[in-house]
């Protein structure tokens, strides 16, 4: 059943801006860093001369984290809006499929699309590094960490945005909350560790990024669970 739901979901995002944005996000970040490194090549290679790849990956993730959070906000809202626009919920949920599965399908679609974005970011970083002649000694583990850990750590925010976007017909509220959250996260370095908007930065008192990832995954899963139950319980608008 869930595979059929996903097939239908992918059909519905055809000809939407969603797919374009999934490409635009990582390519925008890589493009900006290409510009940055291209312009200040001599200086930046001097600063990072001991670890050229590390310098590049760090610079990329500085841009990619806020981009990711903005992306989460916009993508979830657009996915929900496909059904909101002509109130297709009443048609969709009068079909013999469980509401829980429909909602889970939306979550899966969002997570899959954002995963593709992260993957593109990793690939783009490698291509850029090679073009900048940083050698073939690529720190793959570090690269994968920096591309995927922030995404995994922001699962609670993904869950929150999907929940808000689907529950509310007026997208102004989820968009505002998402954008404010993304901005907040830029300045969250000194926030206490329990603030979820700090988790994507992978900074915590223990200095272990994996802690941010784990707490993000657990909280995210919990929120997904609660939102599925809430969606299932509510009358369809």
């Amino acid at each position, binding site marked *: 059943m869930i595979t*059929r*739901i996903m*097939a*239908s979901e992918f*059909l*519905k995002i*055809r*000809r*939407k801006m969603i797919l374009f944005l999934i490409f635009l996000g990582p390519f925008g970040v890589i493009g900006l860093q290409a510009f940055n490194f291209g312009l200040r090549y001599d200086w930046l290679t001097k600063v990072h001369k001991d670890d050229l790849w590390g310098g590049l990956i760090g610079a990329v993730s500085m841009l990619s984290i806020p981009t990711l959070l903005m992306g989460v906000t916009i993508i979830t809202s657009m996915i929900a809006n*496909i059904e909101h*626009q*002509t*109130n*297709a*919920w*009443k*048609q*969709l*949920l*009068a*079909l*013999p*499929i*469980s509401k829980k599965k429909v909602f889970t399908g939306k979550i899966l679609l969002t997570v899959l699309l954002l995963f593709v974005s992260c993957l593109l970011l990793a690939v783009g970083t490698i291509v850029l590094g090679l073009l900048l002649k940083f050698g073939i000694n690529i720190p793959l583990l570090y690269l994968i960490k920096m591309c995927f850990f922030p995404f995994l750590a922001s699962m609670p925010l993904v869950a929150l945005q999907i929940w808000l976007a689907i529950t509310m017909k007026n997208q102004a509220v989820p968009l505002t909350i998402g954008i404010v959250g993304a901005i907040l996260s830029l300045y969250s370095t000194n926030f206490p560790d329990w603030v979820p908007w700090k988790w994507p930065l992978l900074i915590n008192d223990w200095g272990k990024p994996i802690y941010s990832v784990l707490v993000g995954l657990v909280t995210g899963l919990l929120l997904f669970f609660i939102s599925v139950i809430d969606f299932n319980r509510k*009358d*369809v608008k």
Partner: protein
Amino acid sequence: MSNVIIETNKLTKTFGKKNVVDNVDLKVRQGEIYGFLGPNGAGKTTTIRMLLGLARPTKGSIHIFGKDIQQEKYSILKKVGSLVEYPSYYGHLNAYENLEAVRILLDAPKSKIDEVLSIVRLTKEAKRPVRGFSLGMKQRLGIATALLGNPELLILDEPTNGLDPSGIIEIRELIKSMPKEHGITIIISSHLLSEIDQMATQVGIISQGQMIFQDSLSKLRERSKSKIKLTVNRAESAWKTLLSHGYTTELMQKNLFINNDSDDQIAKIIKLLVQNDFSIYRAEEEKKSLEEIFLDLIGLEGGL
């Protein structure tokens, strides 16, 4: 007696403190076209949403195909096609893709898409984005979507709302042909009796959440008690004369109205008037139209 397809028992939905649907006992039998009538805000859409499992009843029960919707929602919905209020569609997709998005979920054969497109006569428009469709075309696409799963029961909420007369006729013909050709049972809501009196076999009339009439359309017609209208030269004095002889009549716009109860009584009244030298210009029967009966019914209950 044929099979009961839909049966609700004291179905109630409360918003705030108001019973928007109030102890409704709805009964639809196999092969019927059931007209679900009521003025704006009567509770038709709310009832239909509950039938489809989109909203939970505050009280009461719903059985469709003899199964309780609370317990066997999905096995019921497999055999139900629906169209609720204005049509739902994905504007950026064409008609074919819209149907495909639902077909995948129903796991229906691909050939079904062409079939339903041709039933609603949209085959030629299948590759156009639905955003550019006229309201009538969108409504037809909605009906096509409802037919995708080979339903045994079609639930249509105001499918002719906002359509022009030719669009209404088109949808009406489409709906009328279905029980005959496909053996489908249909419940269709409307706020105009005239819109469904040419296709419905049964009617349920709901007003302010309460079911105030539920029977065959012919039973509703019988309700049209006719009156005899007399046009006489001196109406007021004729009225007084009749009253003094024990006949109560209604005096309206210089016409006398007599309840059409017995021929004998009418004859006596006319005789009396003639004997008292009144000139009778006309004596005619006045029958209420179906729409008037409907308005009377909901007017009585609703105090409009």
